[in-house]
C-alpha cells in the first residue's frame, strides 16, 4: 500500500525554473573500510610517535608509552598499534585505548565473541586474563614489602618532579599538551599576576630554575638507585615502576628538542642510557603496526 501526499501549496513557476538550476543529487552511502571493523588482534590506540610512524611504533606521549611498556614487560606479544585515532576517539576522550577482540566481560553483559574498547586502567586486568593469572600478586612483582612501598615514592618522583620538568621545558611535546602544570606541581604555583595584586589571578608563576634543580636531583637519584641492576629496586622481573621509568627516559632521550637541559641530565648517566636502550628493544618487539601481517 503506497501513500501519497498532496499539498495545496504549489511552487510558483518562476521559482521552480530558478531552483531547477540547483538539482539535488543523492550519493550512495560510504561503506566502512573492512580493515578497521572488528580487528581480530588486540590493537592499542596511541598518540603517534615523533617520527617515522611506519617503523617506530613507540608513542611520543608518556602515558601511551607507559602502557605499551607495561604490556611488553608482561610478555604479551603481537599487539597491533594504531596511531591514526585522535584522543577524542578514545575511551573517555583520552588515549591510550585498547581494542580487544574478546570482551573482558567485567560488566557481564557483553557476549563472548564481541570485541570491546578498554580504557587504560583496564589494561592490567586484560593482561592478567591473557596470562591466565588467577590471583593478584600482593607484592606486585617487587621483591618485598619495603621495595613495594619504596616504589610508590619513585612513581611519585617520576610523575611529579620529572613530569613537571617535561611540561615546563618541552611545552610543545605531546605529553605537555595533555597535562596541566597547575595540577602537577606541588605545592601549586602562585598566579603570574601575584596573590596580593588587584589584578585578577592569571597564569601560573612556575619557578623554572627550581624545577630544573629538582629534576637534576631526581635523575641523579634515579641513576643511583638503578646502579647496575637489571630492573629497578632489585626486582627479578620488570615491574610497573620499570615501565614508567622507561616511558619518561625514552621520551626525554628521543624528544624533538635535542641537547636541552632535560636530555643533558640523562645522557650524563651512562647506566640510565644503557638501560633505556636495552628496554627499548624489548618493548619494540612486542608491537606490530595495524594492517601488517
Amino acid at each position, binding site marked *: 500500500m503506497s501513500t501519497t501526499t498532496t499539498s495545496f501549496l504549489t511552487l510558483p513557476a518562476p521559482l521552480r525554473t530558478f531552483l531547477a538550476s540547483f538539482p539535488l543529487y543523492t550519493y550512495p552511502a560510504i561503506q566502512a573500510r573492512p580493515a578497521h571493523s572488528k580487528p581480530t588482534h588486540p590493537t592499542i590506540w596511541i598518540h603517534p610517535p615523533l617520527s617515522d610512524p611506519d617503523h617506530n611504533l613507540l608513542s611520543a606521549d608518556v602515558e601511551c608509552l607507559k602502557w605499551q611498556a607495561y604490556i611488553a614487560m608482561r610478555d604479551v606479544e603481537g599487539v597491533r598499534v594504531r596511531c591514526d585515532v585522535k584522543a577524542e576517539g578514545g575511551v573517555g576522550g583520552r588515549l591510550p585505548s585498547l581494542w580487544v577482540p574478546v570482551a573482558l566481560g567485567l560488566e557481564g553483559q557483553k557476549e563472548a565473541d564481541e570485541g570491546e574498547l578498554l580504557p587504560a586502567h583496564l589494561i592490567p586486568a586484560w593482561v592478567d586474563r591473557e596470562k591466565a593469572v588467577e590471583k593478584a600478586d600482593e607484592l606486585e612483582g617487587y621483591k618485598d*614489602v*619495603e621495595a613495594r*612501598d*619504596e616504589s*610508590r*615514592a*619513585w612513581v*611519585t*618522583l617520576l610523575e*611529579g*618532579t620529572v613530569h613537571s620538568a617535561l611540561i615546563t621545558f618541552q611545552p610543545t611535546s605531546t605529553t605537555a599538551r595533555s597535562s*596541566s602544570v*597547575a*595540577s602537577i*606541581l*606541588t*605545592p*601549586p*604555583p*602562585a*598566579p*603570574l*599576576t*601575584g*596573590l*596580593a*595584586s*588587584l*589584578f585578577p*589571578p592569571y597564569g601560573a*608563576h612556575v*619557578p*623554572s*630554575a*627550581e624545577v630544573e*634543580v*629538582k629534576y*637534576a*636531583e*631526581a635523575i*641523579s*637519584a*634515579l641513576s*643511583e*638507585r638503578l646502579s647496575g641492576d637489571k630492573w629497578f629496586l632489585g626486582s627479578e622481573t620488570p615491574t610497573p615502576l620499570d615501565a614508567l621509568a622507561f616511558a619518561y627516559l625514552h621520551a626525554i632521550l628521543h624528544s624533538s628538542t635535542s641537547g636541552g637541559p632535560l636530555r643533558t641530565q640523562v645522557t650524563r648517566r651512562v647506566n640510565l642510557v644503557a638501560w633505556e636502550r636495552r628496554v627499548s628493544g624489548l618493548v619494540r618487539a612486542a608491537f606490530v603496526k595495524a594492517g601488517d601481517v
Partner: protein
Amino acid sequence: MALVLHVWPGRWGLISIDPQCIAAALYLQLTVPGEFSIAECTNPDISPSGKLPFVTDGMHSVSPLASIIKFVSHRRLGESPPDGGTHHVNDLDVELTTHERAQKAAWCAHIESQVGDLLGHAMYSMEVNWRELVGPTLAGMLPVPQRYYVPARIRDIYKPRLEASELWDVPGEEVEEKPKFGEKKKEEAKEHKFKQVFQREKVVEKARACLDIYARLLGRKRFFFHDRPTTLDVVLASHILLLINPPYPDPLLKSLVTDSYPELASHARSVYSAAFPSSEAYPALASQAQNSFKALIPTFRFPSRASVHRPEVKTDDDKIDVWTWGWIAMAAIGAVGYWVLAGPRIQIVLVEEDETEGLAQEEGEEGGASVEEEEHLVASLDDDEDDE
C-alpha cells in the same frame, strides 16, 4: 643577622601555618641555630618564586624550599678563624650514603605530593574547616584590603591539584541545623547521604594507604635514617604537625593520625622539639615593614637564575655563559664604535626665518631644486670635515 627567613606567621603552637615554611624553619634551626632570624611575611609576591618561604642574605634572595636547603647547605658561615679557615657543614643529610640520599629524594617527593594533598584537603577543601578556621586565620593575618580577597585566591590555587587527586569537593560532617520556625525540615535523599559517607570513606582509605607506608618505614626508630633528624624527618614532620595541631572543626584526618598513627604524631613532635624545645628557643624576629597598598601593584617578577642556588656540577655551563656574555659585549662595543667612527652623519640644520623666506622665493623661481642643493651642501660639509 644577615640571614633572614621570611615565613607565614605562626598559629596553633607552630612557627608558621604553611608546611614549607615550617620545614624551612626546622632545617635552619637544626643546621645554623642562632645564625638567622625569622620575619613574618604576609605578602608572598615579594618572594622570587611568588610563594613563601624565602630567604634573604643581604641583597640575595633564595626561594623556594629546595633551593633554600641547598643554599644553606653550601653557605659559608662566619669569618675565617686564625687556624686557617674552616666552614661549618650545614647539611642535615651529611651522614647519609649516596644510596640513602637517593631514597630520601624520592620519599620527600612522595610526602610533598601525597601527604601534601591530604593536608590541602583538610585545610582548603573541607568547607567547614575553611569557613571556620583556615579562612578566618588567614584573613586575620592579612592587612586591609588583602584580607578580603587573598584567602580565597590561596584556596583557589589548590583546587586544580586537589581535583586531579580526587580530594576536592568532598562533603564534610553534616551538622543538623535546627529548622526555622514555620519551615519544614528538609529531608535529605538517602542516596545523597550514602554518597557523602562513601566519599569520606574514600578519603580515609587514601590517607591510610599513604600513612601506612610511613608507619612501616619509621617502624620503632626515632628518625628515619640513623639517630638524628634528616631532611626527610623535617619534611614529614612539617606536614604531620599541620594535620594534628590545628583545632579543625571537622577532624577527619586529625583523628585518623592521632588515633591510628600515634608513632607518626610522636615523630613529628619529636622533630619539632629537637629544633624548638620551647617557644623561647624560637629565632629572633626580624622586623619587616609591609605596605599593603604597595602590594596591590603586581611586580611581574621574572624568575632570575641567580636567585636560585644551583648545584656545583655545572662548571662547563658557567664557562659557556661567560663566553656568551663576552661575545655579546664585544658585539655591542663594535656596533657602537662603528657608528661613532664610520657611521653616517646626520646633522640638523637650523635656518632662520628670513633665510627660509628667501629660500622659498628661490625655490619658487628655480622649481624645487633647493632641497637637492641643501643635501649637497650638507654632504659637502661632511666631506670637508672628513678631509680635515
